[in-house]
């Protein structure tokens, strides 16, 4: 991968985009300038612009893999240089007119940033509650209000703003707006927000006073457009963050291989080995559901209202827990901001927003819960071998096909029963798959009968647990299907699904050969 080479060896102290430089920027609370220069040179923004508009975005799996290269080094660079422009991008590609899209694409391709201002501190994940108001003016709109805790808002040349166009509560009261920053546009910077992780991120806010803007899409369509478009980022942002766990594992293995304890190497302790194998398994699980969710955006965009929240919910937990377990293995060395393991604590801090940023895990549960009854009735007791969800060329990404609700269509879950028709499944894998199918069937019985009126914000906690159970099944099904659809190599041998010994052997081989620990297993710089 070209970007991998450009960013170079993380361990090389002389590398301006290596660990030492990344840590120094973190200590200063700044973006890694040398890293931004490399991404400029690579024109990372082109990855966010659809090919039809002159960019390189035609395959989200590729985008995720490119961004993992960045995230595994510096999540601040990942979000602060790149991903925030990706978020505004998907809103623009979904809601913008052809002329607006072209204009935005031009800006991004020339290296500019477009920030995305949805968040207001008072409303958090409650998008329908956002207050910043847009009122009609002679040739467009005027914005008044504030947006807070927004990445790059001060240094972006344009901003997509989520604005209220109707004071009434409801789903048709907001509109996406496009603001091209200009002197005297009525905006005033709010003080930068300081954070414990992602310290270099340019996290700011703006107060708007009669700031001119143009609408993206019809008036009142903002919430719907955002909920559709952001399915892309809800899926791919957590998917990128798995790169952090790759580096966490690598630092842990390197440290534990050198460390002597009780007369032997720490890495030879059985407990250490089982934790490492477990974290590796979780990384593969996280990337397996990420891959299914990412491909689904191309293949079954009508269903990603479900998969995007499921990916976010599952992957964030897997990677956060994985880093926590590694920190326990590293002991006091995890706690140091200097020395060979120092990058670990930075990555641990930087990873935190994967749980609450963009959309919180609880909000994912809230969005999935009302969809369960229909999914249960229409898909969980069916059997369908999906085409293209796990392998093969991806169809074009169609933002206009993303839907607010999955309407009960869940080809991922339905693929489980179909997989069991495959006679080539080894006995132990089959036993597990059958147990999963029984679980899915049991869940279907409960969920099909859930009273839809009780599935809102005030739903009882046990219903939230049903969501957790469902997402767990999606993860296991993704792993099974990933194995079935892998043609060769480690992932094609079912051992990885259940054998800690096989996992550990592969993990140590990849560490020795300096290969990525996730699905791609590619060589690293």
């Amino acid at each position: 991968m070209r970007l991998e080479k450009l960013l170079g060896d993380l361990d090389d102290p002389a590398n301006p985009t290596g660990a030492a430089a990344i840590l120094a920027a973190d200590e200063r609370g700044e973006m890694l300038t040398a890293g931004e220069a490399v991404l400029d040179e690579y024109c990372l923004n082109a990855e966010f612009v659809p090919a039809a508009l002159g960019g390189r975005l035609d395959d989200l799996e590729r985008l995720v893999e490119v961004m993992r290269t960045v995230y595994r080094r510096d999540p601040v660079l990942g979000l602060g240089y790149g991903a925030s422009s990706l978020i505004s991008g998907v809103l623009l590609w979904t809601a913008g007119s052809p002329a607006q899209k072209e204009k935005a694409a031009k800006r991004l391709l020339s290296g500019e940033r477009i920030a995305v201002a949805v968040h207001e501190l008072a409303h958090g994940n409650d998008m329908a509650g956002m207050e910043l108001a847009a009122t009609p003016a002679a040739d467009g709109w005027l914005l008044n209000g504030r947006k807070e805790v927004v990445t790059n808002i001060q240094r972006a040349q344009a901003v997509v703003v989520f604005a209220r166009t109707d004071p009434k509560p409801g789903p048709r009261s907001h509109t996406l707006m496009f603001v091209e920053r200009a002197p005297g546009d009525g905006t005033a910077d709010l003080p930068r927000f300081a954070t414990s992780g992602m310290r270099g991120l340019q996290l700011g806010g703006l107060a708007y006073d009669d700031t001119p803007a143009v609408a993206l899409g019809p008036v009142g369509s903002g919430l719907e457009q955002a909920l559709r478009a952001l399915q892309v980022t809800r899926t791919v942002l957590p998917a990128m963050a798995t790169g952090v766990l790759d580096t966490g594992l690598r630092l842990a293995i390197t440290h534990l291989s050198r460390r002597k304890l009780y007369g032997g190497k720490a890495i030879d302790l059985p407990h250490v080995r089982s934790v490492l194998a477990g974290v590796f398994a979780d990384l593969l699980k996280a990337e397996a559901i990420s891959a299914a969710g990412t491909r689904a955006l191309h293949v079954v965009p009508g269903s990603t209202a479900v998969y995007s929240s499921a990916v976010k919910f599952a992957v964030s937990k897997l990677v956060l827990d994985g880093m926590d377990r590694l920190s326990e293995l590293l002991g006091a060395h995890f706690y140091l901001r200097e020395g060979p393991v120092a990058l670990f604590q930075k990555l641990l801090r930087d990873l935190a927003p994967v749980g609450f940023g963009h959309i919180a895990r609880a909000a994912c549960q809230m969005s999935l819960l009302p969809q369960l009854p229909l999914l249960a009735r229409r898909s969980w007791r069916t059997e369908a071998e999906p085409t293209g969800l796990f392998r093969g060329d991806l169809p074009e990404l169609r933002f206009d096909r993303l839907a607010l609700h999955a309407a009960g269509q869940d080809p991922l879950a339905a693929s489980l029963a179909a997989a069991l028709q495959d006679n080539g499944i080894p006995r132990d894998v089959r036993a597990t798959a059958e147990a999963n199918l029984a679980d899915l069937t049991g869940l279907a019985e409960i969920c099909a009968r859930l009273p839809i009126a009780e599935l809102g914000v005030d739903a009882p906690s046990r219903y939230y647990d049903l969501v957790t159970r469902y997402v767990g099944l999606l993860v296991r099904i993704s792993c099974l299907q990933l194995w079935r659809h892998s043609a060769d190599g480690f992932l094609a041998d079912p051992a990885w699904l259940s054998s800690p010994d096989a996992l550990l052997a592969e993990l140590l081989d990849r560490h020795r050969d300096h290969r990525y620990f996730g699905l791609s297993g590619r060589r690293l710089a």
Partner: protein
Amino acid sequence: MKVAELEALLSAHEHDAWSPELLAAHDDHDRFPAEAVAVLDEAGFGRNYVLDRDSSFPEMTALIRAVARRDLTVAIAHGKTFLGSAPVWVAGTPAQVSAHADRVRGGEIVCWGLTERDHGADLLAGEFTASPVDGGWRLDGEKWLINNATRGGTACVLARTDPRGGARGFSVFLVDRSRVPDEAWQPLPKVLTHGIRGADISGFTARGAVVGDDARVGDVGDGITVVLKALQLTRIACSGLSLGAADHALRIARDFAVDRRLYGRVLADVPHVRQILGRVAATALTAEAVALVATRSVHALPGELSVVSAIAKAFVPTQVQRLLGSVAELLGVRGFLTSAPGTGFAKLERDHRICGIFDGSTAVNRAALLTQMPRLGRLLRSERVDAEGVRAAAHLDAGLPAFDRNRLALTSPTGCSLVQSLPRVASQVPDVLSEVEDLAEAAAGFVPAIGGLPGTAFDLAARYERAYAIACCLLLWSENDQAGEQPWLRACLAVLLDRDDEEAFDAMAAVLLDRKAPAFSILGEAA
């Protein structure tokens, strides 16, 4: 000093030395919280660290908790003096104890030089040496990642006195730095850390530092024994740090839930949020129950501390870290921001991660517990208990016997009376009884493996810790006449047995939301 006095003192300094803004600024700049520490010193807080026949271990731990709930960095930085002094309390001569107690009362800073750069928890690999010279000992070597190593006027050091090493190859020395020339004793640079950023985490190098034989604490060759006994005390005292962190986090969570409106509701009224609040509140109380009984056991069951301390040090920080994870998720961006409207939570969460590491990590303590596991399994089947000891440990109004260091032992021939009480006290709780039966079998059948413990062994240790916590909860309830509806017991059992008990968690949420006292405690507002 009583907790109420301390609370009053710290409240009086809320706008200067103990202001959260100042403490946050120190943290941000990796600066020692000198003003806050000075307030404690001026009030003579050091006297609480002296452990003699008049001391109350539960009260000392409660004081550490009260400091920790305002600022964990300060509690760790200051409380280190107790850790460094524990070997003297455990093994010092009367003259050493008396002289050291005077110094500690006077505000002496003591560090504990245990770990070395390449060996961490592997004490038997230590390379810091003490060699006999005329009239004393010559110290050479390095200790690293030592809290207060630079500021400490006194260092308590574990040194190799037999070049061959081994369990009898080490001794403990108490070094008065003012009596050692500077060139023989050099502090190492401050180490930058993930949390407790202001604390003095550094180390020292001794090069031919000569001390008298009166600096030796305990007999030559007794070092490992002294350290292991001292750790029994310090590992239990550390629970105060985690409980303080839990108090702090629960206060932040409560304020957040009460003040925050989303989706047209106050968060505290959203059923799912209430379940999360109730669960974290109950999680805190499971940790407190263990800490209460463990600190009382220092007096009541001193012969069992080898087991109790390992359980407390593994269980309490782990539960509290889990609690912090749930609160972090609840707070979202407010738990991540260090500027307004951030809450101080981010610092607290970073700070607390050290509690599961220092003074023996969770894994080290679980390994220690596992060495006694076969006996613990056998004794659990036999149901033998020190009934008087159990009652004194769990009955909060019972007077505690004076701490008697001579009853400390490296292993516990009587096992763990708390866990062994379970068949009796859990007679009304069928799922506990069946768990106890399974646990006894697994523990008795456990064979400490050659070549390191497998991951499953650590699960067994965690299971034993949970059984201990269940016993603590049940006994605290039954021994203290907390008859009638006690939501905390049901909620704690739900946490420990991994049951879904919406009603109990909802009731705990109500208790938390109603909370007025600075501590969140089984003891209620009285704590």
